C-alpha cells in the first residue's frame, strides 16, 4: 500500500496543475475581461493640424511644489499624486521604447492615441475633433506639391532628459532603427513610409512610399505615423546598439533602465504591486512654446489590481483618481453611493463610443452565404438588451447613433449621408420582420419548429472568448434572437488562447464557429478608413495570420475599389459619397454587424482629491478628450488639474 505513495504524489501534482488551470474559470471577471480596444484611430482623413493649441486652465494654475522626491517608506503625498487603475495589468517588464513587450502601460504605448507621459510623438491626436496638434513639432506639418512627402519643424525648446536638444536627426534615426530592428512602428509603417531624413537640425522630411503611378501608397498612414511613433534619442539608441551588438532580439529585449526620454514623467518605482512615475521638473514642455508650465501631479501612480472588482473597490475608497476600466453600473457610484465620482458625460452613455465590437458571419457556414439568413439574424437581435446588460448602458443605443461604419464621434458621423442609408439602418428586435424575410426567401419552419434551408436544418454556434463577460452577454442575446426566429443558435466560449488562433487562420473551424465576435478599430488619424478597410477589404478575407479583420471571409470588389481610393481622395464631397456608398454596401450585404459601441478608453474620475478633470463642455479649447490624461491630446488634462479645496 505504502509503495503507491509516490504514485499518489504524481497524481496530486497533476491534479494541482489541472485544478489550477480549471479553478479560475469560476473567478469573478479577471483582468482581461474586456475586449482590447483596437487602437486604431477617429476622424476622416484629417486636415493638416492647426497651430499650437492653447490649454485653457479653468482655474489658476496650482502651485507646484518642487522639493526632493519622497523617501522610500514614506507615503507618496496624496495631494501630489494622481492614481490610476485599469491601465497596468501585471508587472512592468522593461522601459525600452523600442520594445512592444514591456507591459509598461503607464509609460509606453505607441498607438493611434499614443501615451506621451515619458516618451513623446511629434504630434498629439485629439479624437474629439480628429486633428493632430503639435507636441515636439513646431506648427502644422505640410505635404509637398505632389503629395509625396511631409515636412515639419521641431520646437526649439524641446530637449531630452539629459539636457540635449531634440533634433531632426533623432527623428530620422528613430525611424531607421524602427525599420532595422523590426519594431512595431517599423513593421507597421514601412510599407507606407520610405525614408525620414533631417533637412536641418529642426526640420524633418518624411517621404512616402510610392506606387507604380508615383503617388503615395497611403497618405493617411504617412501622417498617422507622426502622432503614433515616439521620437527616441539617437545617442541613447547608439548606446543601446553598442551594448547589444546590433542583434535585433537583444536590442528589443533590453530592459533599458538608462533610457533617455523627453516626456514630463519617468520611472520612480515599479514592482509586482505598483508602478510610480515621477515628474521631471526640467521638462521642456514648461516652455511658453508648449504648455507654459509643468503638469500638476508630481507622481503618477498605478496600483496593479488583479481584476475589475478590486479596481472598482479602490475607486470607491478614493484610492484611485482616474479609472480606465469597466465599472459596471457606473452611475450607482454617484446616484446611490453619493461619491464624488463622475464620467465624461453626465448621463448614459457616460463615455464617448469609439470602437464597434462586431459579430461576424462565417461566410463558409451552411446557409450563412444567404443574405436573408444573415439579415434575419442581424435585425432580430435585441441591441438594447445587449447595451443594457453587457455595457450597463455605457454605450450609445442604435436609436441614438444609428448603425453605419462610423463610430459615434461627431467627426466620423459627419462623414456620411445619413438620410441616404436611413432605410438600411436596422434598430434590432424586429422578430416579425426577420420571420417574414426568411419565409419570403423560402426558408420555412419545419415540423420540429426550426427553419430549414434546402432541406437542411439551420443550426449555428455563436462564440467569443471565455471570460470576456461583456462579449459573452452580447453573444447570448444573439443566440436568443436566433431561437426567436426559428434558427437554432447555441453558444460556445473557448479560452482566448484557443479562440484567437482559430479566428486569425482561415479556414475557420467548420464546427463551433459560425457567428463570432471580434473588435474593430477605435479612434485615430486614419479612421474611419482603417476600420472600414479592416471590416470589408477582401485582401484580408480567407488568409492566415490575419490580425487585421474581415475574419468572416467576405469579398466584394466594389467595396475594395472604394476602400483603395479613399486614402488619396482630397475632395470632401467625393469622400462623403464614397463613405456613404460603403455604408450602403455594408448594411445591405451584412457580412458582419455592430453589437454595441465601446469607448476608446473607459474614463471615470473620483474628485475627492483632484478636480477639473476633462468633462464634456469643460471649456477647454481644443477639448481635452476622455483618454485618462495620458493618451494623445488628453495629456493636456494633466496641466488643468487642481486640488479640491478642503
Amino acid at each position: 500500500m505504502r509503495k503507491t505513495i509516490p504514485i499518489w504524489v504524481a497524481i496530486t501534482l497533476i491534479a494541482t496543475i489541472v485544478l489550477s488551470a480549471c479553478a479560475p474559470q469560476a473567478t469573478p471577471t479577471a483582468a482581461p475581461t474586456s475586449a482590447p480596444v483596437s487602437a486604431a484611430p477617429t476622424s476622416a482623413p484629417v486636415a493638416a493640424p492647426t497651430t499650437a493649441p492653447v490649454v485653457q486652465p479653468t482655474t489658476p494654475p496650482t502651485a507646484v511644489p518642487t522639493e526632493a522626491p519622497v523617501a522610500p517608506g514614506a507615503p507618496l503625498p496624496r495631494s501630489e499624486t494622481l492614481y490610476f487603475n485599469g491601465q497596468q495589468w501585471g508587472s512592468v517588464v522593461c522601459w525600452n521604447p523600442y520594445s512592444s513587450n514591456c507591459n509598461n502601460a503607464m509609460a509606453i504605448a505607441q498607438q493611434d492615441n499614443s501615451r506621451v507621459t515619458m516618451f513623446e510623438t511629434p504630434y498629439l491626436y485629439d479624437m474629439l475633433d480628429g486633428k493632430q496638434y503639435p507636441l515636439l513639432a513646431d506648427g502644422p506639418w505640410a505635404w509637398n506639391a505632389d503629395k509625396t512627402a511631409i515636412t515639419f519643424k521641431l520646437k526649439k525648446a524641446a530637449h531630452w532628459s539629459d539636457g540635449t536638444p531634440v533634433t531632426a536627426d533623432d527623428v530620422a534615426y528613430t525611424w531607421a532603427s524602427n525599420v532595422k530592428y523590426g519594431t512595431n512602428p517599423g513593421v507597421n509603417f514601412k510599407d507606407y513610409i520610405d525614408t525620414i531624413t533631417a533637412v536641418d537640425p529642426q526640420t524633418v522630411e518624411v517621404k512616402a512610399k510610392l506606387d507604380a503611378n508615383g503617388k503615395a501608397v497611403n497618405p493617411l498612414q504617412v501622417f498617422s505615423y507622426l502622432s503614433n511613433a515616439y521620437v527616441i534619442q539617437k545617442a541613447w539608441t547608439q548606446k543601446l546598439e553598442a551594448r547589444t551588438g546590433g542583434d535585433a532580439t537583444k536590442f528589443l529585449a533590453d530592459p533599458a533602465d538608462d533610457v533617455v526620454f523627453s516626456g514630463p514623467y519617468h520611472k520612480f518605482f515599479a514592482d509586482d504591486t505598483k508602478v510610480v512615475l515621477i515628474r521631471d521638473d526640467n521638462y521642456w514642455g514648461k516652455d511658453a512654446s508648449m504648455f507654459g508650465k509643468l503638469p500638476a501631479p508630481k507622481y503618477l501612480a498605478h496600483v496593479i489590481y488583479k481584476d475589475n472588482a478590486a479596481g472598482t473597490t479602490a475607486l470607491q475608497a478614493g484610492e484611485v483618481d482616474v479609472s480606465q476600466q469597466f465599472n459596471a453600473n457606473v452611475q450607482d457610484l454617484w446616484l446611490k453611493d453619493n461619491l464624488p465620482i463622475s464620467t465624461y458625460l453626465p448621463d448614459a452613455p457616460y463615455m464617448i463610443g469609439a470602437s464597434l465590437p462586431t459579430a461576424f458571419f462565417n461566410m463558409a457556414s451552411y446557409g450563412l452565404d444567404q443574405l436573408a439568413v444573415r439579415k434575419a439574424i442581424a435585425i432580430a437581435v435585441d441591441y438594447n438588451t445587449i447595451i443594457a446588460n453587457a455595457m450597463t448602458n455605457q454605450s450609445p443605443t442604435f436609436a441614438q447613433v444609428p448603425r453605419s461604419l462610423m463610430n459615434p464621434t461627431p467627426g466620423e458621423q459627419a462623414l456620411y449621408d445619413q438620410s441616404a442609408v436611413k432605410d438600411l439602418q436596422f434598430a434590432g428586435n424586429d422578430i416579425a420582420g426577420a420571420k417574414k424575410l426568411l419565409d419570403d426567401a423560402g426558408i420555412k419552419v419545419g415540423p420540429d419548429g426550426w427553419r430549414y434551408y434546402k432541406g437542411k436544418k439551420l443550426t449555428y454556434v455563436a462564440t467569443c472568448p471565455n471570460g470576456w463577460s461583456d462579449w459573452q452577454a452580447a453573444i447570448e442575446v444573439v443566440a436568443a434572437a436566433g431561437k426567436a426566429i426559428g434558427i437554432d443558435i447555441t453558444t460556445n466560449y473557448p479560452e482566448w488562447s484557443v479562440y484567437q488562433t482559430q479566428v486569425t487562420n482561415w479556414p475557420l473551424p467548420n464546427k463551433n464557429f459560425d457567428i463570432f465576435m471580434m473588435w474593430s478599430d477605435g479612434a485615430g488619424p486614419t479612421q474611419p478608413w482603417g476600420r472600414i478597410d479592416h471590416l470589408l477589404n477582401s485582401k484580408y478575407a480567407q488568409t492566415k495570420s490575419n490580425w487585421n479583420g474581415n475574419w468572416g471571409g467576405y469579398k466584394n470588389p466594389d467595396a475594395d475599389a472604394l476602400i483603395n481610393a479613399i486614402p488619396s481622395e482630397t475632395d470632401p464631397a467625393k469622400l462623403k459619397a464614397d463613405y456613404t456608398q460603403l455604408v450602403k454596401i455594408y448594411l445591405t450585404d451584412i457580412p458582419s454587424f455592430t453589437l454595441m459601441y465601446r469607448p476608446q478608453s473607459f474614463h471615470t474620475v473620483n474628485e475627492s482629491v483632484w478636480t477639473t478633470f476633462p468633462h464634456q463642455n469643460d471649456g477647454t479649447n481644443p477639448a481635452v478628450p476622455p483618454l485618462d490624461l495620458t493618451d494623445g491630446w488628453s495629456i493636456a488634462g494633466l496641466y488643468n488639474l487642481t486640488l479640491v479645496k478642503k
Partner: protein
Amino acid sequence: MKGYRAYFLNKLLWLLVTFVFAFLLNFTLPRLMPGDPVAAIVSRLAQGMSNSTGMKEVYEHYAALFGTNKPILDQFFLYVVNVLHGNFGESFSQFPRPVADIIKSSILWTIGLQFPAIIVGWIIGNALGAIAAYLKGGFDKVLLPVSIFISNLPAFGMAIILLVMFGVDLKWFPTSGGYGFDLIPNFSWNFIWSVIVHYQLPFWSIVLIAIGGQAIGMRSMSIYELNADYIKYSRFMGINDRKIIGYVFRNAMLPQVTGLALSIGTMVGGALFAEIIFSYPGLGYTLYNGILGQDYPLISGATLIITMMVLIANFAIELLYGVIDPRIKAAQAD
C-alpha cells in the same frame, strides 16, 4: 539500523523515479493545451497594426525566438538546459523577463501568506477538533456544523465575505494590495505595519477555511481513538484524563501530519483566490495568467518548484514516519 537503511534507499529510489516522471509531465502537459502561445503575444501587439505582411513577420520572429517552431525534442533539450542554468528560460508572456526572476519576486509573498496560514489553520483546527471530540455535548454540536459549513465555503466566497464585511463596510482593513497603495517598500515601521494590516484579510480567508476542514478530520480521528480499546483500558486503569488526551492526540495526529506536509508542499502554487480578490502579490495569480497565456516556461518553472516541494515534503514525512512508527518501516523494509 539496517532496516532503516533499506527503507531509506527504497524511498529515495521512488523519489527519483517520481521526479523524472513529474519532470517529463511538467514539460509535456502545458504543451498539450490547445492553442498557440505565440499567437497570443502577436494578438497583443497587433492592436492598431494594419500591415498584414508585418504581422506575419512579427509572428515568425517570436516563434523562432521562443523555439515553438522547433521539433518537440529540441524544445525539451532547450528546457533542460534552461533548468540546469537555474533560470527556467525567458517567460513568453512577460518576455524578456526570465522565469526565475518572476518567481523570485512573487514567491516570498506567497510563502509569507501561505505558510503561516497553513500552520495556524492546522493547529487551531486540530485543537478544536480534538476538544470537540473529547468534550462532546454542546461544544461539539455547535462546532461540527459550523466547521462543515465553513470548510465547504468556496475560497473566493470566504474572501469576498471578509472583503465586504471588514474592508468595504466596516473599513477596518484595506481592500487590496500587499502594502499601502501610497507606499514605496523599505524597512521602516510605517511600511512593515502597512504590510501587517494588509495581511489580515487574505490570511484569515485562508485560515478560516483550513480550520473547518482540519477540525472535522481531527474530530473523527479523535472519536475513533477515544473509543479504542486501549483508551477504555486506560480509563479502567484510572489514568488521568490529561494523559489520555495526550495519547489520543498523538495517534489521531498521524494522518493530519501527512495532510500538513502536502499542504506545505503545494503552497507554492499560491492562494489564487485570495490573491485575485485582494490583489495580493504572489505566485498563484502569476501562474494562473501563465496558464491562460500558455507561457510554457513559466508554467513548467512554477510547477517544477511545486513538484520538488511536494516530493521533498513527502520524502521528509516518510522518513519521519520510519522513525516515529516502527511498523511502517518494518512493513516497507520487507
